[in-house]
């Protein structure tokens, strides 16, 4: 019996999908040979199905994965392994949950301004979930033993510096990616920098603490069969070399750098809060995702351009672009127009400040600016964060006025990445042979 079009149309899909039995398939094939209309239908349908099947899969971004893992870690309460690395991760996760209750931007940043520790804003309320533990001032109390690590809540109680004798071979590229010090830096943040935001950080207290930490390091080195003086010298060299007085030595690893015996020294600074600032992400992954990139995520020239774009509008706290327009920007970037926009075309907007047309022009320029940023590969998160800034804030970003920005509710980790603070000191010569700075 011959198949009619109506029957054939229903079978075209299964035919394409190879879901028909031999007899049915043969009937469809014969009909297609005989019917031009259905044959066209078939070819179109087959092409379309192929097109659908070949749609590229999306790949989870690092941030999406971090959010996922962060959530899962919270969910899985039971410790999963007894390896030190795993313990460290749990510890960090526990420390994170402690910090969830506070607004890091307001607290952490208050102590980070310019080159050194400065008094904290008075109203920085530190409502902690730290089981009543008070470490109001930096250096008030020295670090204690890490035996309570498992409880998580006492993250602050485990911040001793770490000495590791790995004898691993590292080259410069490895050092760029070096993350072994991360857990210690996080411990240090929750022990020293975060609590200190409730009081003041005194240079004298820092100095004293540095001395104590150095002794702790050297004692541990001796216990590990290393020459304590060698490490002490290395730490001193690093501390002298750095211009930043608000950092603490936190980690030392005996390794081989480009074939030479060396100490890798890492330091913790108040900006380590950046590692904590987004509670959604497991901190270890934040740093891992940062790669060699440091500090500002948006180029200075782009920020200057943004400032000049926003200047004429003079509006404060008023985002120029409503949220949710990113898709349009992406689409525009996709059709290739973005890259052709002239860069400095903001003069016209400046002259027409108060008029509606002027605002429209500013908006247009602003959109075009964002499209170009996107086309240059700036992350969408950063771009959305930029959209929220007003003129003053862009200037503050340019000037590095982090404290004011943070006080204004800006999440600095949208714009900044924490620096790596790592030095390699040659054991033989005592010289710094590699540094992240």
């Amino acid at each position, binding site marked *: 019996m011959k198949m009619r079009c109506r029957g054939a149309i229903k079978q075209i*899909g299964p035919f394409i999908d190879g879901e028909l039995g031999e007899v049915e398939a043969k009937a469809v094939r014969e009909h297609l040979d005989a019917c031009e209309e259905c044959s066209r239908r078939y070819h*179109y349908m087959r092409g*379309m199905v192929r097109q659908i099947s070949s*749609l590229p899969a*999306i790949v989870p971004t690092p941030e999406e*994965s971090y959010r996922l893992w962060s959530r*899962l870690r919270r969910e899985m309460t039971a410790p999963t392994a007894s390896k030190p690395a795993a313990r460290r991760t749990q510890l960090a996760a526990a420390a994170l949950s402690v910090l969830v209750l506070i607004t890091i931007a307001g607290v952490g940043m208050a102590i980070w301004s310019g080159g050194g520790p400065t008094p904290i804003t008075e109203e920085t309320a530190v409502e902690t979930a730290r089981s009543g533990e008070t470490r109001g001032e930096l250096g008030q109390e020295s670090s204690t033993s890490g035996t309570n690590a498992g409880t998580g809540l006492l993250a602050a109680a485990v911040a001793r510096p770490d000495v590791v004798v790995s004898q691993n071979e590292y080259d410069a590229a490895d050092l760029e990616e070096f993350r072994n010090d991360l857990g210690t830096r996080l411990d240090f943040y929750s022990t020293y920098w975060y609590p200190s935001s409730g009081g003041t950080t005194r240079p004298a207290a820092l100095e004293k603490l540095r001395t104590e930490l150095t002794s702790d390091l050297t004692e541990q080195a001796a216990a590990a069969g290393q020459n304590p003086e060698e490490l002490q010298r290395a730490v001193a060299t690093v501390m002298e070399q750095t211009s930043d007085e608000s950092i603490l030595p936190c980690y030392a690893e005996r390794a081989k750098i480009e074939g030479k015996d060396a100490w890798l020294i890492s330091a913790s600074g108040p900006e380590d809060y950046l590692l904590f600032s987004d509670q959604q992400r497991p901190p270890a992954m934040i740093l891992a995702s940062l790669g060699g990139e440091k500090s500002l995520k948006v180029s200075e020239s782009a920020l200057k351009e943004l400032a000049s774009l926003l200047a004429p509008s003079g509006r404060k706290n008023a985002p120029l672009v409503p949220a949710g327009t990113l898709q349009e920007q992406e689409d525009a970037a*996709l059709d290739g127009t973005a890259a052709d926009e002239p860069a400095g075309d903001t003069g016209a907007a400046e002259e027409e400040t108060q008029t509606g047309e002027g605002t429209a022009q500013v908006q247009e320029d602003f959109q075009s600016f964002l499209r170009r940023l996107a086309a240059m590969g700036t992350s969408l998160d950063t771009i959305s964060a930029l959209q929220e800034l007003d003129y003053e804030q862009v200037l503050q970003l340019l000037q590095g006025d982090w404290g004011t920005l943070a006080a204004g509710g800006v999440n600095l980790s949208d714009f900044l990445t924490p620096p790596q603070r790592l030095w390699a000191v040659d054991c033989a010569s005592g010289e710094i042979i590699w540094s992240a700075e």
Partner: protein
Amino acid sequence: MSIYDDNGGEQDRTTDEELVRLFLAGDGNAFEELVSRYESVIMNMAYRLLGNRSDASDVCQEVFVLLIRKLGSFRGESKFSTWLYRVSLNACHDYARRSKRHVSISESPGDDLPDIEQRLADDGFDSPELSMERAEVQKTVREAIARLPYKFKEVIFLHDLSGYNYKEVAEILGISLGTVKSRLNRARARLANELEYYREQFS
């Protein structure tokens, strides 16, 4: 053929079911392995079904949290992947319903299609080597799928995008073979209609 590496079938790889068993016995690494095997799959599923990335990411989290809680009830009667797909599809469905309700309170869509179906996909950028033209076609196809009714998206996702055959799709969705066939036919008829402009190109 699947575009997702959901279960490559390598000989020396621990099976999903074995990983589940290990996890239930307290091996956290086994769970990590499961997540890394399926994160991308679930993200893609949620992305196709919900139409945007941030919802997809939310649902993906919900699914794995559910997994932690529900793995104990996995009896091994079906393949783990089938079971996971079912759990995930339900999660997506719940999410879509919830956000639909949420959205309709704040906005009046004025269209018979639910809001969730109308949202544009937000892939970010396709790879630069992709020609503009191809990217545009892909975008149109993606958006046409995103506008399909939910039940149609499910079958398109499972069959055309994930490579499951009719029988497997029926098993995952808990529907009959005939229903799979008719949903797929209707879904494709809609798409064919929407993508008419590209008829020549596809043929």
